[in-house]
């Protein structure tokens, strides 16, 4: 096992290296991307807070992800119930249909939406972007929630029923609390999926309406990049690590992401 251990730790080092390298590069005092950095200064980290365009893109990403996450659950949860409980005859077909958006390359999907949105006036509108995100996040939310719904203890509902609760009361007081963990996990992962998505936003967001990843991409690819980009990258990485650790210690990352296929 020693050989394996060395191999694994070498892989870990390689995985962390690109992330860690952004930190010293962002600490530079000049405005050039170089390693080792010329001079040390925190100015680029500070400039995150004054870069209006960047801040707006962060806000946009946040609201987009929040909207998408809430809507995904709102749409996928009843669907999971219908698939699991309803006597729907073509359940397999339904499940395949719902997860099919994830089976085609995202670039094909986004091109299709781009050409489709133009004639119907949704191109470069926030609503269009939300819809595009929903198409790729709902399959995932559906899968996760389906597992939660499938593991509900129906005897709790029967007991509630006999004790006098209406179906709505049973749902509100007994079923929803049972689904809490699944819904939170689904929400968080859908939020992450939407926040980090580049391809959809790249094609579909309006000119002045860039999300954070798109803003970062544009600066890298076209507009010229200052060390504020490595700075924000590093901050995002740190947040990502913290989020991961919290999730792993509470919900168990493998359990829920494995439903992601």
């Amino acid at each position, binding site marked *: *096992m020693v050989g*394996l251990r060395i191999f*694994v730790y070498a*892989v870990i080092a*390689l*995985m962390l*290296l*690109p*992330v860690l*390298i*952004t930190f010293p*590069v962002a600490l530079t005092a000049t405005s050039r*991307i170089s*390693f080792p950095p010329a001079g040390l200064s925190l100015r680029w980290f500070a400039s995150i807070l004054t870069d209006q365009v960047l801040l707006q893109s962060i806000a946009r990403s946040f609201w987009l992800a929040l909207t998408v996450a809430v809507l995904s659950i709102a*749409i*996928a949860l*009843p*669907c999971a*119930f*219908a698939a699991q409980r*309803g*006597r*729907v005859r073509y359940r397999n077909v*339904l499940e395949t249909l*719902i997860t099919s*958006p994830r089976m085609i*390359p995202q*670039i*094909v*999907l986004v*091109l*299709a*939406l781009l*050409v*489709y949105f133009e004639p119907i006036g949704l191109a470069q509108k926030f609503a269009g972007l939300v*819809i595009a995100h929903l*198409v790729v996040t*709902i399959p995932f939310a559906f899968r996760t929630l389906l597992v939660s719904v499938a593991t509900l203890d129906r005897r709790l509902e029967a007991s509630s029923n006999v004790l006098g609760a209406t179906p709505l009361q049973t749902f509100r007081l007994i079923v929803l609390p049972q689904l809490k963990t699944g819904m939170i996990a689904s929400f968080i992962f859908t939020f992450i999926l939407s926040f*980090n*998505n*580049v*391809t959809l936003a790249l*094609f579909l967001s309006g000119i002045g309406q860039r999300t*954070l*990843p798109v803003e970062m*991409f544009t600066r*890298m*690819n076209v507009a010229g990049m200052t060390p504020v980009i*490595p700075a924000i*990258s590093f901050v995002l*990485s740190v*947040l*990502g*690590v913290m989020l*991961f*650790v919290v999730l792993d210690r509470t919900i168990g*990352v*493998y359990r829920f992401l*494995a439903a*992601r296929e």
Partner: protein
Amino acid sequence: MPRLAPQAISLALLVPILLLLIFFFLFPLAYLLHLSALAQQPTLQNPLPELSFVNYAKILQDSFYLSMSLNSVLVGLSTTFLTVAIAYPVAFYITRISGWERTLISVACLLPIFVNVIVSILGWYILLLPFGVVQQALAGLGIVSGPLQLLRTFPALVAVLVYEHLPFAVLILVSSLQAIPADKINAARVLGAGVPRIVFSLIIPLTMPGLVACVILVFSLSASSYLAPILIGGQRTPVLPLAIFSYGTELQNWPLAAALSFVLLVLVVTISYGFASAMNRIAKRGQWEFV
């Protein structure tokens, strides 16, 4: 209160999702397919150009597009092979440990999906700059001197894609490996099998479905990947998604872009399913050997 038939309620609950998928998934794809069979870009003056397969003909005959398709396939295959080769041992190790070590290793492996892709690419970009970290390390060891053109090469592109897709592979393989009941491995050990034999005769066959799923996923994601090719690969390793993007946005030739995307789709799907059914056949044939 009139009681609705359960079937009616179920159908009602499904309406939003069905509407969404029909109007914003199936219709757009159908429209894209239609576009790919047009001779020209629809414009306000000419909203309904004639049907023609000229775009497909162009793609299949022009060596430029053919080499692009080949590149896409090569990129996909190389990435998949390396990713699985690295992810499998790592996933195996992960299933053998627990606690903080497991969290640490998992963080490192899964980080690329917790932060956006640009962050990952940026890191590699910095490392691979002509006077970046890699060049400095190699220069320090005396292997090279002067600037190193690592960006815009095939190996660099594959490296970044492997980095991007390792998390997916690790996730699938960890859950596949965890599903192996420990008593099967213990039985093999009691019977005297050594580690290599256990791995090849027992563990790999039992995780075959996970492996196949992994290969299909990584291949389709990396062959159709867009960002790494454009930021790292550049024009030296042109792949289909780059052309799709150009024709779709800057050059405004939607029919050609549509045709290219269906070519990509067909390539990815046929290779994926071809692989899956080949694996199925092998697995069935050799099944009794692994018992």
